[in-house]
């Protein structure tokens, strides 16, 4: 369901901003997936581990 949720979010600025505000019910998405999604939406910059392989 995570895939479906992401496909919907990227095509709706309204849903995207609601998700970023934690106001969107994400049916079928586990709590770990939801946390990771919110982490990514709020903090898009790459971390040091992004460059383990260059």
């Amino acid at each position, binding site marked *: 369901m*995570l*895939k479906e949720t*992401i*496909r919907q*979010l*990227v*095509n709706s600025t309204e849903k995207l901003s609601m998700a970023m505000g934690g106001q969107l019910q994400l049916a079928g998405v586990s709590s*770990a*997936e939801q*946390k*990771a*999604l919110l*982490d*990514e939406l709020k903090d*898009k910059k*790459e*971390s*040091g*581990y*992004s*460059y*383990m*392989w*260059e």
Partner: protein
Amino acid sequence: MIEFNSRVGSKMKEIVLAWFSAEPLARYTLQFIADKQEEKMMFGELTNIHYRMFGGQNADIEAASAAIELFILASDILDDLEDGDAPSKPWMNIPHALSLHIATSLITLSQQALLRAAPNAAMRGELADMMNRQLLQSANGQMLDLMNDIPDEDAYLEMVRQKSASLLVLACMAGVMLAGRPWHPDVADYAAELGIAAQLRNDIRDLLRWDEKSDFLNRKRTLLTLYLLESPEEQSGWLKAYYAGGIDLSEAAGHKALFLQTCEQSGAALYGSVVSRMHYNRFEEKLAGLDADSTWKERLLNLLQGKFKEE
């Protein structure tokens, strides 16, 4: 981090000069190490941090970190030779037979250097067994990747666990074992999670680039290209045709803007970053529960978050 790179780079050169008596073997290898020093040598730093996290005192940890980086260098060279890309790398600009020979020599050298960093024979035996198990796991994963016929997401993540995560386990566990501890299953678990998270970040970059390393142009099957190929037909029709051979490379290469638009509209990069973040979050949770020196746990997090401070 810069100082660490410099110290470990010097140690790598010292090891090369001690064991590679054939002048051209040493000369080319020193050139390759100089190139490697331009990057962050995070694998060696992982070995160093885990050694200190578990109270290591008697091993030559700088030599061990250098040994791990020598293996990573060998792995980089072999990977580039197998993929046939990275034209700017020095090992791609000499006869490939020489690069292949240097890479295989480096694998043996890295094992020799790691074993000699251990303070006693018992530890050397355990280290050799651990290193070979991780390298064999990585070799299995690399073969599956080269075959490029991964059927689905689960198979892809398992391949990454073997090919890439095993090298993170090697780097971390070498530090743990040199500190006098046995194989640590919790460290192995979180190192594997970190390895998967890191490989998926690499996949995002290779999805969005448009050169000889582009996963799309090379028709590579990754978590993200599989996601793209599952997109609604109006988005993915031409991508599927390209992967099936119905469109050739020269035609596909002219559709960069359309490809990037498809990536954006499908959320492919976001999907990859979320799956990567899930694995990174699991790594952080497991690290938090580890009974080890908190100063070095913090330093590990700083390294991974890009805060490279010398301490």
